């Protein structure tokens, strides 16, 4: 890779963010979609938590984490979808070749997609957390500084998976679009969003611990139930995330090269 390929321009990143912002503000269905599903699921988990809270002991303690678990899972899922959706917009509008023959570097493209995933999530996620306070008296923001660490770790995982999904779509065309929507769900049972890692069979537990979000969800339960911030878990998640981000970036670059070899960029489609 030449030195020019590594050159970085904030203006080009800004151009891409502006492109997605123009799109977002021009389409009210896109804005509604950002809030709709998180809100529906928040109500479902909120009422479930209320129902189970009438129990006592361990059941009640576990249930008290449902809303926090859902909101953090939603952040992970929507962080990846926000990244991938912006990328998919280029495929749907057949604009990707225009970008690939422009001076836009892959790293600038990826950073713009990361920023957009944060913006898209903020549009949908913040109102839903406020609804959770209003309807269920649950204030996610009470988690304080720990929340920033949780958010950062979950975004890192979301971006790593987003880079892999986008690379696969770039290489294989819109036929691989389904992966964008479904890939994160393989993490749902394994990352122990709603139950402790010890619930899993013994042989599955090492796999779970190799997934960065597992440490975040365990850390969240430690904070909500035991009021303890587990810095060790967050450091473990951060270390794993660095590996995942490197793997995600490598997969994006390799799949971009494969797409060029396959001639997939000259006529983007299925």
């Amino acid at each position, binding site marked *: 890779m030449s030195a020019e390929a590594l050159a970085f321009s904030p203006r080009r990143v800004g151009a891409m963010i502006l492109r997605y912002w123009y799109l977002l503000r021009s389409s009210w269905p896109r804005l509604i979609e950002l809030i709709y599903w998180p809100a529906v699921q928040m109500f479902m988990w909120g009422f479930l938590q209320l129902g189970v809270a009438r129990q006592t002991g361990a059941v009640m303690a576990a249930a008290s984490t449902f809303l926090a678990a859902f909101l953090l899972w939603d952040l992970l899922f929507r962080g990846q979808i926000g990244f991938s959706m912006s990328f998919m917009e280029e495929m749907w509008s*057949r604009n990707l070749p225009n970008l690939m023959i422009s001076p836009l570097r892959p790293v600038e493209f990826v950073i713009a997609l990361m920023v957009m995933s944060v913006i898209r999530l903020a549009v949908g996620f913040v109102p839903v957390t406020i609804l959770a306070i209003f309807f269920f008296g649950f204030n996610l923001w009470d988690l304080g500084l720990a929340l920033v660490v949780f958010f950062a770790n979950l975004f890192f995982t979301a971006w790593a998976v987003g880079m892999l999904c986008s690379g696969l779509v770039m290489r294989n065309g819109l036929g691989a679009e389904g992966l964008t929507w479904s890939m994160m769900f393989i993490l749902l049972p394994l990352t122990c969003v709603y139950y402790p890692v010890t619930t899993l069979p013994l042989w599955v537990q090492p796999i779970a611990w190799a997934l960065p979000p597992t440490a975040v969800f365990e850390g969240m339960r430690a904070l909500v139930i035991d009021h303890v911030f587990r810095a060790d878990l967050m450091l473990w998640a951060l270390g794993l995330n660095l590996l995942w981000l490197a793997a995600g970036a490598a997969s994006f670059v390799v799949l971009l090269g494969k797409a060029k070899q396959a001639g997939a960029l000259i006529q983007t489609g299925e």
Partner: protein
Amino acid sequence: MDVATKSNAIEADGLAKRYSDTVAVDGISFAIARGTITGLLGGNGAGKTTTIGMIIGLVAPSAGSVRVFGADMARDSYRVLGRINFESPYVDLPHRLTVRQNLTVFGMLYGVADIAARIAKLSADLDLGEFLDRQAGKLSAGQKTRVALAKALVNEPDLLVLDEPMASLDPDTADWIRGHLERYRAGKNATILLASHNMFEVERLCDRVIMMKRGKIVDDDAPERLIARYGRQNLEEVFLDVARGRARPALSAETAS
């Protein structure tokens, strides 16, 4: 940088592209001088779009190389991408963005200094004013083609690669655009590479025509010399001779050199 690189915008050497069992481009070599307009002709599946893809760095060659302004497009394309632009019917601009928004975004990507002034100039040159603030997806086919051309000119490229640029345009608008391209080339000494099925367009615009068939270059000459050599009235008849495999006159000594 050698002399050839300085005088040529594009240099292809043994350029080939193979997709599993299919040979799309079969080891072609050519050079295109700066400041010229060259037509790339051939029937469907001749390898024109793949050749263009390799020239602009969208497709990786299986063998050989292509250099644009001296940069190997498979390894060092970012050195020259800011000096190139491209338009193709296979590529669109984001539909929900207005024409002005699209040009603003691409102006920023290409590092255009005064984007508002550049958009105003393009709007005047290509008569975009009427729909500058309309969404790109809601334009007629002819308007979309003009907007795509405006995007391709936003950075005032030294190399403009056009794949079927006049498709969907009525004869009046197409003629007007051809005039604009001629003025652009003359004003900037830009190089234009044009793939087209419109023989009249190629005959009028191009200094030189490269004819492709089944991934190979089967002829390469100025349009008027091709017409004379084949003993035909126009380039369309030459094209049909080539496409249907009729006997081809030998290249003149001047062309061969």
